[in-house]
């Protein structure tokens, strides 16, 4: 696909977003309003901006990443708009902010190249850890930067500006920083980690000392689970790390070890924490606990069932009955209003994004860039799997966002930067 074709698909997908808003307007009998034009304009400006930034600062970047991402954002926006038009207005602002930051990322990396990320990996790690710990700030102290606990998880930071307050989830950015750190670390230690001298029975295992980073990552994700009660981020971090370790070494032993560590931590946390127990109960028996824990998942299942093959139509279903439909359960909202057909299209688009991301990784010659592209893509994929799987009751529900689709500023900003990083890597490798 050429840059010109990419621009055309951006306009087409922006048109889809506007068409979705038209459908919601028609369903409400309110007549088509200015939201349609505004939505179209914001989509074209935001993604067109990223496109122009790529033209200027990463001209050889793959043109295949933006199109599926715009379509996902459009479908997600349609449901967010349908559920809460006030939030949709905010989401448009976040889209513009995210696109600007993606452009800034492309511009900064065009002078410094991605090797700067490799060089300053310890600084990146430090910033990420600080970001992760920010929500643990006290909620009531003099400094205008405070932690906030919502829905039983301590994920939020409130930045009090006096006249208004800004809320964000620093974990969304910390996620990127951690992937950068791990990719850089593994690129430097790839060979040592790959060698497996010792044998235990039929399995070759690496030196125990080489397992230390794995154990540190495991420990870190367990700590997050305990401190912030954020099951999603903790799982995401750990799964992403194990997969990246496997990608770097090709040693299945890491997958096996990671699996056992994960299961062990899962069982232990199930026994130790009641919020994990609630999640598991809601996963295994949502209808038996319809009144309390299982309510959200049960409503999600109802929504998917009501949607049937082609859905009730945008604005014609009742996805508003699902708690947190615009954030955690946007996939179920799509299932209700666009049906099975809509959800399959969404999954296909995610698969395409992941295919392009892994394609970039496969084509990379430089180890760091290869691992960075693979890591960013894998974390993205695991996130999609965890939340969609949670809604479909394949895995316990974790309160993480569906990338590009859920309502949520920090997530959108983080994912736009992820997109910019992948584009930059593909530019540097396309020589």
């Amino acid at each position, binding site marked *: 696909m050429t840059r010109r074709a990419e621009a055309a698909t951006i306009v087409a997908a922006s048109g*889809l977003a506007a068409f979705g808003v038209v459908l919601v307007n028609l369903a409400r009998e309110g007549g088509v309003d200015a939201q349609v034009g505004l939505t179209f304009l914001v989509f074209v400006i935001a993604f067109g901006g990223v496109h122009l930034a790529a033209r200027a600062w990463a001209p050889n970047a793959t043109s295949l990443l933006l*199109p599926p991402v715009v*379509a996902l954002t459009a*479908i997600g926006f349609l449901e967010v708009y349908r559920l809460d038009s006030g939030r949709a207005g905010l989401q448009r602002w976040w889209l513009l902010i995210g696109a600007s930051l993606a452009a800034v990322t492309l511009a900064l990396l065009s002078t410094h190249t991605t090797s700067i990320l490799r060089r300053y990996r310890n600084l990146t790690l430090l910033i990420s850890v600080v970001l992760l710990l920010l929500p643990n700030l006290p909620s009531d102290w003099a400094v205008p930067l405070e932690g906030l606990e919502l829905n039983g998880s301590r994920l939020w930071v409130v930045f009090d500006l006096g006249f208004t307050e800004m809320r964000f989830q620093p974990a969304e950015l910390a996620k990127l920083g951690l992937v950068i750190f791990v990719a850089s670390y593994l690129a430097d230690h790839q060979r040592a980690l790959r060698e497996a001298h010792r044998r235990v029975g039929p399995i070759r295992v690496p030196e125990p000392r080489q397992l230390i980073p794995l154990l540190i990552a495991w420990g870190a994700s367990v700590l997050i689970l305990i401190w912030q009660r954020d099951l999603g981020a903790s799982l995401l971090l750990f799964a992403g790390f194990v997969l990246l370790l496997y990608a770097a070494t090709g040693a299945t032993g890491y997958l096996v070890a990671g699996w056992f560590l994960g299961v062990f931590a899962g069982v232990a946390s199930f026994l130790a924490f009641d919020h994990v127990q609630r999640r598991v109960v809601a996963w295994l028996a949502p209808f038996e606990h319809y009144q309390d824990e299982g309510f959200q998942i049960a409503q999600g299942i109802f929504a998917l069932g009501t949607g049937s093959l082609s859905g009730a*139509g945008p604005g014609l279903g009742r996805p508003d009955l699902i708690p947190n439909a615009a954030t955690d359960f946007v996939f179920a909202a799509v299932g209700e209003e666009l049906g099975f057909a809509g959800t399959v*299209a969404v999954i296909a688009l995610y698969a395409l994004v992941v*295919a*392009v991301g892994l*394609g970039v990784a496969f084509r990379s010659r430089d180890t760091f860039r290869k691992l960075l592209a693979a890591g960013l893509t894998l974390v993205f994929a695991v996130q999609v799997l965890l939340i969609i799987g949670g809604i479909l009751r394949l895995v316990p529900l974790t309160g993480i966002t569906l990338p590009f689709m859920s309502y949520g500023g920090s997530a959108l900003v983080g994912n736009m930067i992820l997109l910019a990083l992948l584009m930059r890597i593909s530019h540097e490798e396309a020589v």
Partner: protein
Amino acid sequence: MPDVILALLRIIFLGLVYLFVWQVARAIGSHVGISVRRKRREGTKVLFVRSETQQGVEIEVSSATVLGRSEEADLVLEDPYASDFHMRLVAQDSGLMLHDLGSTNGTYVNGRRVTAPTQLRRGDSIQVGKTVMEVR
């Protein structure tokens, strides 16, 4: 707004989404190395521009084709100066390759006799005896 129209619009919306997915998937498929539709090998056309009996005949070379005077050649050259199995044209991704099969009177590409396999470009002329062909 009547329900029928809304239902129709919904289907149109989904159709457009799928059209989009299909277009993007095709582009990405070729990037990742899977062709969504089996690639039809574009045959290169060869036109007889000068021949006593075959002038104006156009053949499409989509695989290996042997040209010669023999009845058993893939394409019979009706030229007394042609050998029984005179040359082979092979369609490749880069275009046509010409292999002279040790012909007695030789094969000339753009007026120059060739013995080694030769890459042909559009507009090249191939001469065998008195027959002249042009790569289209």
